[in-house]
Structures are given as structure tokens and as C-alpha cells.
């Protein structure tokens, strides 16, 4: 395993229980490893939640962490993947003053070229939604910044692995 730091996406399948987020985040805290992004949602299996956690660390550490996470009673299974092994996306919302749409022609070009969507337009502001990789969202942010962004927010990463995560089979095995 490598000592080199890189990006890892940790996927955790778990029961949907109060307190489990605290238990999982504590494992990172204890090792002084920062969570770069976190997303919790339902998964492809009924009543099973999925945590998607992004960290920048070494494979030794991510292996250690996944072992500790999986050990938690209510965690069904945990996996880690490098960026190459996953398909991943993030979403971002930009809130921008409406007059800029007419005063600054370049903004319309940015909207077209970035493949973003206008979610809403009001007299005072409009909202752009952009889905993509982190660097694409960063680029769009950099382009819009000179004109003034009223509010900006980006979601945690969501990811699916290229290889199958053998969760359903595992659960079926346990049910038997």
C-alpha cells in the first residue's frame, strides 16, 4: 500500500439509525483526518442508508478507517475507491443579481458553455445550478466571481463505483 496521499471515496452502507453519523465521524476525528465532503442518502436497497465520504489521505489510513467503520454494529459494509474507480459528481448553486444577466453579456456565455441550468429567475436574482466534477464547478465559480456572486453552495460528492459493490448479495446471505 502506498504512503502517497490521494483522494478516496468511502461508501458506507448502513442501517438508518440516530447517532450513527456521530459514530462514523468520530472515527475520522480520532485519527485527525479531515472529511472533505460528506453526503448521506438512501441507497439502492430499501431501508439501507449510504454515506459517501471523501478524504485526502494515504491508502494505509483509508484502509484502517474503512476497517473501523465496518466494525460498527449498524454498518453493513464499507468500501473505498480511488477517483479512477468511481463515477462521481457534485452539484452547486450560484445566486447572482438579475441585472447582471443584461449588463454583463459574458454571463450568458458562461451559462451556455458550462452546461448549467437556470433554476429560477426573479426581479432581484437568478439561480444557476451546475452538476459536474469539482474542477468544473471551481472553474465556473472563478468565471462568475468577478461579476459578483450573492451566494454559493456546493454539495458533497456523490459517487457510484465502476465495479459492483456486493451489498445485495451480502444482505441476502445474512437474511438466510
Amino acid at each position, binding site marked *: 500500500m502506498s504512503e502517497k496521499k490521494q483522494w478516496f471515496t468511502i461508501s458506507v452502507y448502513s442501517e438508518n439509525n440516530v*447517532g450513527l453519523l456521530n459514530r462514523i465521524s468520530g472515527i475520522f476525528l480520532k485519527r485527525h483526518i479531515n472529511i472533505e465532503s460528506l453526503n448521506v442518502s438512501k441507497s439502492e436497497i430499501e431501508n439501507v442508508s449510504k454515506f459517501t465520504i471523501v478524504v485526502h489521505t494515504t491508502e494505509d489510513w483509508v484502509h484502517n478507517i474503512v476497517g473501523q467503520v465496518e466494525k460498527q*454494529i449498524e454498518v*453493513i459494509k464499507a468500501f473505498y475507491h480511488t477517483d479512477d474507480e468511481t463515477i462521481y459528481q457534485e452539484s452547486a448553486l450560484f445566486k447572482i443579481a438579475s441585472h447582471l444577466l443584461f449588463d454583463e453579456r459574458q454571463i450568458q456565455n458562461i451559462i451556455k458553455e458550462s452546461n448549467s441550468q437556470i433554476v429560477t429567475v426573479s426581479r432581484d436574482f437568478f439561480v444557476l445550478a451546475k452538476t459536474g466534477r469539482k474542477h468544473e464547478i471551481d472553474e465556473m465559480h472563478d468565471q462568475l466571481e468577478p461579476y459578483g456572486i450573492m451566494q454559493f453552495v456546493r454539495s458533497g460528492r456523490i459517487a457510484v463505483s465502476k465495479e459492483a459493490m456486493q451489498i445485495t448479495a451480502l444482505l441476502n446471505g*445474512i437474511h438466510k
Partner: protein
Amino acid sequence: METIKEKKVETKSPKSIRISGAEAIIHCLLEEGVDLLYGYPGGAIMPVYDELYKFQDKLTHILTRHEQGATHAAQGYARVSGKVGVAMATSGPGATNLVTGLADAQIDSTPIVCITGQVARHLLGSDAFQETDIVGISTPVTKWNYQITKASEIPEVMAKAFYIAKSGRPGPVLIDITKNAQIDELDFTYEKCTGIRSYKPVPSPDIAAIEAAAELINRAKKPYIVFGQGVILGEAEEQLKALVEKAGIPAAWTIMGESALSSSHPLNVGMVGMHGNYGPNILTNECDLLLAIGMRFDDRVTGNLDTYAKQAKIVHFEIDPAEVNKNVKVDLAVLGNSKETLEILLPMVKENRHETWHGEFKKKHEIEYDTIIKNDIHPTKKGLTMGEVIEEINLASKNKAVIVTDVGQHQMIACRYAKFEESKSNITSGGLGTMGFALPAAIGAKMGAMDREVVAIIGDGGYQMTIQELGVIFQHQVPVKIVVLNNDHLGMVRQWQELFFDSRYASTVMTNPDFVKIAEGYHIEAKRVTKREDLKSTIQEMIASDKPYFLEVKVEKEDNVFPMIPSGASVSDIRLK
């Protein structure tokens, strides 16, 4: 709580009874075979204590003098009996006082269930009197925890608590119960928990891995076993002994594993780690095969990882997959319960003798005996040594006592020199290093093994951290023998200050009270020994007594424990002086 909802089959058993949550808790404990628990009452847990009063013919509650004492007593009880220890406390400070014991039980894999009262559901989050987020606080130091806010949850959650605490790699569980859930009624039926879908307590043995291990054992010229508490928790003592004897492999132990193999066994070569034996440490870096059985490569065992057993193939027999490759990268992992995996391994292993290799351990032992052990247990200097006290306890108890130790020099000396014939006999705070552990743990150990002699060996520092538990010993006439090895210092810290901080004894000198008078204040028979000629007879008198007995031995003030692997050094660099 999804799992619970899912598993709950809503059929009202004809046997169901309508009772309060508090009474349900008692029934759950009885269903789990609990007849003894330790605790301390308070506002938020009073409904349960009221039921304990009604059920006192079936369930004995021992009032410790501090909640920390309740957790350590529950630990001591669990460690000698192999059963789950139970501790109870109220909300707020009662609950936070459990944290040290939970952390100790977590790192030393001890099965305990702690039950805490909590303010009523409608007061949660209001900063009510004695409200504290004990579930949040205890999360990192529990195997599992849960807050019950409805009476109907009690039977299923309690069943889960006991199952989780005891199964797989054991550990502490905390169940926090709001006051309304104790008062409200439920239709009570009880079903023991036998499985949880997201939790696999014991990995299934992999035959290919066991075959590979056998192959390595059969080929090895200098095989070496280091075993830990996993052997005791997995009840694999017989299998370990059989492997050691059949393959002729010298075996050393971590302090948590001590007593799993009889001290007198010819292939028991002693203790590994910072103050372990000379041969077992040095030869870790000379073996060609290291079999680590039910141990977790703690830093106090390995020293510097970069120079730990690099020449050897390492096989790790382990129940917890997260321990594999955590500290030491191994060549082969054999996952599973050690009893089961060793059982499968045994027929595959060829009979062997490694006499030359075993001879290396004997040679190293002679060096250690001449330079250290002889002076420790048969000293010729004036002052009393801790080692000679342990040796006299061995002789008087015929190596049959349960030895409960605290943390520090006396602990290392006791682990080095105490002799054991039976398993589950060395009770100590290994991973967390909790001063104050021994006195309450000895109470629990005695109650968990009433037919056995229990001797607590404690330093003058740690003794004063939980000294109030003398009250329990007095009130219930718990016949434990308490030996305080008094050097008027926090000895281990003082030793480090002497060796690594130019003898600057910052806050390690203790002006102690009259310990004999304190014990006598609790009406416990008490003696003090200051001279060698009184030691043997007093220890014999203590062991012969069938009552609680306190013995203070004034030992040399500035003795050091050797051998020693300085913190961060290699096992090869173990110092004899």
C-alpha cells in the same frame, strides 16, 4: 431504529405481561442471567432502583462509592467469570463518571452493559437538571450505545445490548433510558437476540489460510508464538497449549494474555513488551515465524514498528478484521475465533521440537535472571522490593490466586513475577492504563469467583484514586486481600523522570496518609510491613484469612523496573539497566 422495527414481530405472546419500563429492565436482566450488578442511584434512574428494591431476592445490587467503581467492578466480574458485567448510574454526572470504565472496557475488550437514567423525553435538549448527552459522550468508547425513549423498546434493545457486549470481540455497551420510558407501561415479552443483520461477530474460518499457516509452521526453523487476551476471550487455552506442545513452539504473552498458558509450562517463555522478559523481546527479532494469536500489536508490545520482527513471516490469528495490518503488516491473516481456527490447524501441524531455538530463550533467561530477576525476588539489599512481595504471594497462594493490578511499576512487577496455574487470573488495566482500576475490579473479581483467592496489588498512587470502594468491601465483607506497595511516589512516572528527564521529580513525590488507619476506619483488618523478616509470615496470615485484609508494604522508594524498552525504541534495544 430500523433494525428493531424490522425484527419486531407484532404478535402479542400469550405470556406477555403489562408492566412498567422500570420493571421490564429488571426482567430483562434476569432473562440474561444477571444476578449481580453494581451502581449508584439518582433522580433519573429512581424508578429502576425502586424495582431493584422489590426484586432484591433475585438480583443483588452493590452500591459502589463512585460510579467509576461500578464500571471497574463490573469489568473485574466479567474478566474472571466470562459473563457480562452490569453497571447502573443516573443521568448527568452519574453517567459521565462511567466514561473511564467504558473506555477501559473498550480497549481491553471487556463485556459490560451500562444502564443510565436520562431525563424524560420531553426534556431532552432543554438542559434539564442532570441532563447530559451520554450517548454522544460515550460513542467513541462503546462497542454500541442506544437511547431508549419509549417503554416498548426496552426488551429488544436490552437483548441486543447483551448480545453485542458478549459476542465476537466483546466490549462495553451503554443503554440510556429516559425517565418516561421507565415509568410508562408496555406489554412485556422477552426474546434473546441471536443475530443482527449488519453485524458479523465472528468471521468464518478460511481453510486455505489455515492450511497456509500450517505450511509456514511446518517449515519454520525458529517459530515463535505471542499470544494475547484473544485466547482467553475465545476460550482457546487448551488449543493453544496443544499447538505449543505439538509443534514445540516457544510461547510468550502480552499482559492481557497472561494466565492463558500455565506459568510453569516449559514452553512458556514469558512476557513481551516494554517491561517484558529479555528473551521474548530480543528474540522477536530473531525468529523466522511469528504467530500472533489473539493480540493486537499494541505499541507497548512492539516498540518501534520499523524494526519489529522484520526478518520473520508473521501470521495473525484474529477475530477482528480491523486489527489485521492495523499496526504491523502481516504475511497471513487467519480470521476467526482462535478456539475454532486453532482446532482446525492442529491436525495439519507436524510434531516438532525446536530445542536449539528454545535454548536461546533459556540462555537469555539466565542473563536476565542474573542481572535482574535474582535481585528483584531474592534481594540482598536492605529495602524491600516489589518483586519479593509478589514472590511471597505466589508461595502463600500456591500460584492459585487471581491477581488484580492497577497501573504502574507494581503492575509491571506483578505481571512479570506472579505465577498462574489457571486462566482468567491476571486482571489488569492493560490498554487504557487506568489508575484506580484495581480496588473496584478486585471486588468484582471476587464476586465473580467466590471460590478463588483474589489479591489486589496496588500502588500508593492508584489506590487513592478509588480508595472509597473500601466502603463496599466493609459493607459486604468482600474477602479480598489488598496489598499496597507503597514507595511514596508515583513510581513509574518517577522512573521515567529519572531516566529521561534528569531526575526532575515533577509532582511524583507523595506524602501519604496512614493507610492502615484508613483501612481500620472501615473495620478491615490491616497490617503494615516495613522489614523483610515480617514479610513472609504476614503474607501467609493474609492469605489464610477468610475475611477482607489490607496489607501495606513499605518498599524501596526509588527502585526501577527493568528490563525496559525505552518508548519508541526497538525490541532489540531492551535495556537491562
